[in-house]
């Protein structure tokens, strides 16, 4: 059992408050991902859970037990560092077994446990090597081995894949998920990469400026962002935000007008949108190329990015670009004009402060 609860947790560096009263609950066995841009406090929060940073306000509870003043090694928590932080003068086996060696566990027992873990992590052939003689992926596995040999209730990962190349990252993502399934430990994983967050997490905590912007299941964050920040942070390419004016066209119908997109009618019979200035949020995949006669607006195409399986078109203007994601390879050129339609069901609206306007 390992339920993590952070209650109104705060952290100051001098007079600067970097964690501003955070409340997070991670259930037992859950894979939680803290995600956010640089400087949002996600790593600090992780280090506070680890015990490497003090907690200046609020409580950190593990299974209901207050952990604020418990030493890092007494919390039953292991951590995998961004730089792996392997001991360069020790072999792979010594690195993995170091925590047991410190506890004076008999050498034979350590050897047995290290071998069992090496087996799981496919490190058996490298046990006598020094970290310097390993590839990035192998070092990563040693760091994981060093964490799991302690049989921790909670494993913390601090951007563990950021030093790996793209293909290895995909492979390690799958390995980490498999490991999580096998170990059934509670995992808190920090990343700035929203793709990592979306693919691995049971629950994502989006952090912004030391506060929780939203915490929910990945797909819920995608479909129902609470605010413009989460809306633009989750999803790739990011959601387009367009300043619009909302007026009432008829009962249950709002007229949404944007400078370059013209006016569209949105069915808001379930929950009327407030009239006045607002922001329209529409994901690139919810804009479509339309036949000449149809569509909601036309625009010049500024940039074409052809990836084969899909094509990204940048339209609008350079100071207010709009990204459109079209399936398949579209042979268009910058300077062409085309008509586009907006999927009305997938439109998001935010007030000028960035708060989501409820749709239903």
């Amino acid at each position, binding site marked *: 059992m390992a339920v993590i609860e952070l209650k109104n947790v705060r952290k100051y560096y001098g007079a600067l408050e970097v964690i501003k009263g955070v409340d997070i609950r991670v259930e037992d066995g859950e894979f939680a991902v803290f995600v956010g841009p640089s400087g949002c406090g996600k790593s600090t929060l992780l280090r506070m859970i680890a*015990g490497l940073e003090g907690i200046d306000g609020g409580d950190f509870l593990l299974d209901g037990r207050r952990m604020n003043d418990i030493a*890092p*090694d007494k919390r039953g928590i292991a*951590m995998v*560092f961004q*730089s792996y*932080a392997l001991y360069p*003068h020790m072999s792979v086996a010594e690195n993995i077994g*170091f*925590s047991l060696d410190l506890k004076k566990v008999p050498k034979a027992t350590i050897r047995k446990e290290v071998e069992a873990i090496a087996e799981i992590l496919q490190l058996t052939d490298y046990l006598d090597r020094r970290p310097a003689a390993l590839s990035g992926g192998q070092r990563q596995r040693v760091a994981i081995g060093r964490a799991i040999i302690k049989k921790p209730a909670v494993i913390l990962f601090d951007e563990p894949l950021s030093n790996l190349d793209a293909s290895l990252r995909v492979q390690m993502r799958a390995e980490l998920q498999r490991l999580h399934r096998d170990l059934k430990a509670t995992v808190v994983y920090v990343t700035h990469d929203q793709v990592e967050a979306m693919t691995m997490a049971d629950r994502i905590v989006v952090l912004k400026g030391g506060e929780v912007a939203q915490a929910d299941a990945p797909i819920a964050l995608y479909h129902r962002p609470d605010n413009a920040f989460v809306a633009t942070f989750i999803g790739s390419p990011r959601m387009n935000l367009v300043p619009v004016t909302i007026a009432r066209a008829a009962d249950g119908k709002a007229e949404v007008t944007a400078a370059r997109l013209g006016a569209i009618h949105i069915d808001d019979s379930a929950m009327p949108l407030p009239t006045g200035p607002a922001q329209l949020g529409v994901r690139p995949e919810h804009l479509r190329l339309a036949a000449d006669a149809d569509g909601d607006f036309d625009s010049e195409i500024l940039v074409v990015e052809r990836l084969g399986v899909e094509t990204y078109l940048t339209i609008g203007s350079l100071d207010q670009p709009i990204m459109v994601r079209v399936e398949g390879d579209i042979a268009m050129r910058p300077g062409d004009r085309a008509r586009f339609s907006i999927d009305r069901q997938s439109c998001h609206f935010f007030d000028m402060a960035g708060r989501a306007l409820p749709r239903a």
Partner: protein
Amino acid sequence: MPWIQLSYERRVAWQLRLILLPSVLLLLAFVIYPAVYSIYLSLTNEALTGAAALKPRFVGTRNYARLFSDAKFWNSLLVTLIFVIGSAVIGQFVLGLVSAVLLRRPLRWKPIFNSIILLPNAVPEVVAGFMWISMLAGGERATLSRIVAFFGIPAADWLQTFPLTMIIIVNTWRGIATAMILLTAGLSAISEEIYEAARMDGATPRQMFTRITLPLIAPTIFLYMLVSTVSTIAIFGFVYALTRGGPGGATELISIYIYNQSFTAFQLGYGSAVAVVALAFSLLIGVVYVRALKVEV
């Protein structure tokens, strides 16, 4: 061949030789030549006075044979050994390491501590010598005597009563900064995350020091040991200023013995033989460090 027609690699090779030339010339003139000349002198009865001064003779290995039965020579070797171990290997190293480890932490007055430790290196050797003479002089008005009087310890003539201990203390004082700078460089190569990982693994501060810090700075320690051992064997100035090697040979380092034999007893040939043996010892220590401990120099 005109310069311009040389291949790039050969041009670079020539440039490197050109850059090295001044150093090579200086080494040849002031290190290699004197060393070779010393070896030559050590095989003669060259002296500054008497018949040998007028017409020095080749005496073969007679100087070396004499050296082996010279109790004062063996005494100077022993004094040098104690001096090197006491001041360089133990004093400077231990205090330098302690300073480096302590000053790595965020301390409020860190720049001031740093400056204080570095000060002894800024003082000219002879000035330091005179300063310590006044500190360690006999009589109740001398600085050290007045300090220890606070603790009820009677005044002493420190350089007469504890001569070797005193020069070990003075040399430790001079060398802490060098040790600290080198060891700080070694320590700063260890990333903070390694210590954090060790904390997560349950290492106590003591275990972190013995299992992480020491093994990781071992190469720096060995390099420091090599440099400090060889340079301490060659120390002359301030010890000569303080004690002239006395009393009764108690602080007669091999460097002072060489000087005394060559320029006090005027036996240049014999002094050179001692110098050659000292050089051989330094070389031997260097080779042992480099080979056995795999020090990278």
